[in-house]
């Protein structure tokens, strides 16, 4: 399953709830304000995910729009642009947008 999260972890519990149910084969994509959760000092639920089998991506154009630098992010985060977003959609089914 591909989980798409678009809210910061300080806005709602979508990311937390998603991580509670995600399995090793699942993929999480952070878009829009959710990219803030990728920051190492954000105290987001992702900080406890180091070593987890869940793969977490962040949408790089949304990071750039918010000044979120890769160097300040958790080291297991992977990055995609919109073309990579499309590839994730093609490679995963079902897709769940969490609001």
């Amino acid at each position, binding site marked *: 399953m591909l989980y798409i999260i678009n809210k910061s972890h300080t806005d709602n519990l979508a990311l937390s709830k998603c991580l509670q149910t995600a399995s090793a084969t699942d993929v999480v994509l952070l878009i*829009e304000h959710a990219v803030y959760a990728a920051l190492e000092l954000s105290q987001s639920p992702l900080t406890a995910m180091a070593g987890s089998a869940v793969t977490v991506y962040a949408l790089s154009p*949304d990071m750039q729009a918010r000044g979120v630098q890769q160097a300040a992010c958790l080291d297991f985060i992977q990055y995609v642009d919109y073309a990579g977003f499309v590839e994730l959609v093609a490679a995963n089914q079902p897709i769940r*947008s969490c609001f």
Partner: protein
Amino acid sequence: MKISIQINASPYQHQAADSAWHFIQAALVAGHQIYRVFFYHDGIYNALRDSRPPGDERDIVKRWSALQAEHGIDLVVCVSSAQRRGLLEQSVARKVGGYEAALADGFRIAGLGLLMEAIIDADRHICFGS
């Protein structure tokens, strides 16, 4: 691959319409088919013909109309969501005395059946919202 898109948020308050538009551009470049874009809830504001953003800003409504004209993508506005918000199809507006030219070029108004059809027929369905 056939991909359907659902947009649930208004264009200038949330990023959903921008995210969807950029995603669609990338999907088309990659050779995928956009089966339908369904505008639901406040997403219907993407179809307001008289939207007039400042000249130095992106015009989200015109951008959708251009996408439809260039690629023939089916842009469907939920009838219930639209009528609740005062966006009426021409024939309905004429009947009730409403504004007849509210819907922007390239959009059509229809029911939730077309959302269900898109979810069933497309290979992937993605929802962008607030």
